[in-house]
């Protein structure tokens, strides 16, 4: 009976996972309007997502990538936002966050909004 319940729960979870859109789709819907489908951004208007690897070098930089308003306030739950962040880092910046962003980390960071995103960005990059 216990095994059957576990199997049922696993099937439900698999079903839920299959129903969620791939991170690439979430990227198109929530990011590409400004950053473009290839992450190139708009020179002088929207920063590119192609060179974000240096942010992962420090805890402040890693936190910045979640706390920046466009990410923290996206209409996505924590788990989907974490998957999207990992996808953007891998696909656009060729970097794998270690450890990967997960729902718990994203939940804590997005609850702590940035007052001055520009200053936080410069600070995270040591500028």
């Amino acid at each position: 009976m216990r095994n059957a319940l576990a199997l049922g729960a696993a099937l439900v979870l698999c079903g839920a996972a299959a129903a969620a859109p791939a991170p690439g789709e979430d990227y198109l819907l929530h990011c590409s309007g400004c950053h473009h489908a290839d992450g190139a951004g708009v020179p002088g208007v929207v920063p590119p997502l192609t060179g974000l690897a240096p942010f992962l070098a420090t805890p402040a930089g890693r936190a910045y990538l979640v706390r920046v308003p466009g990410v923290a306030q996206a209409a996505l739950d924590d788990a989907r936002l974490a998957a999207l962040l990992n996808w953007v880092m891998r696909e656009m910046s060729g970097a794998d966050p270690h450890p990967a962003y997960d729902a718990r980390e994203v939940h804590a960071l997005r609850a702590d909004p940035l007052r001055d995103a520009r200053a936080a960005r410069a600070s995270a990059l040591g500028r």
Partner: protein
Amino acid sequence: MTDLDVRIERAVRALARRTGRRAFLARLGALLVGALGLPLLPIARSAAESPRAPGPDENIPGKEGDQTHCDYWRHCAMDGFACACCGGSASTCPPGAEKSPVGWVGSCHNPADGKDYIISYNDCCGKGWCGRCGCNRNEGERPDYHWVRNNDINWCVSAKSLVYHCSVAIVVGQATEPQPER
């Protein structure tokens, strides 16, 4: 004799109309009426700064195929003038207008194949406002207080010219999950 009278009378009256004080008054009247209309003419020049207003084509029934209607499926979150009515198409700006590099992305349901598609709404900039096919459907633009879900923005702020002309609705992918109306 009567015919001659009538013909002479007409000729004299016509001469009087062309040359007399009544002709002068008639021309003056035409000039005044024409002058009254003059301030109405430069609408296109001043309208660039005016707020957007719904056009006469709003809410025409029919969803499939006709890009010149607001009910065209790709226009589900359109807020502006459909470029297909302005010399462009649903996905291309009219000649002389620049597509805004930044836009708003949502999803629309295509009744022809029953699938949802991801649509990028961009504004075309650098020409005076089009004024035709003013659409204001805004589906998926919810909740209103969520700033990233708000499409009521002139995206020409990201273009070389701030002047808004019309909007395009470009298919950028297929959506497995329709944009929720929260």
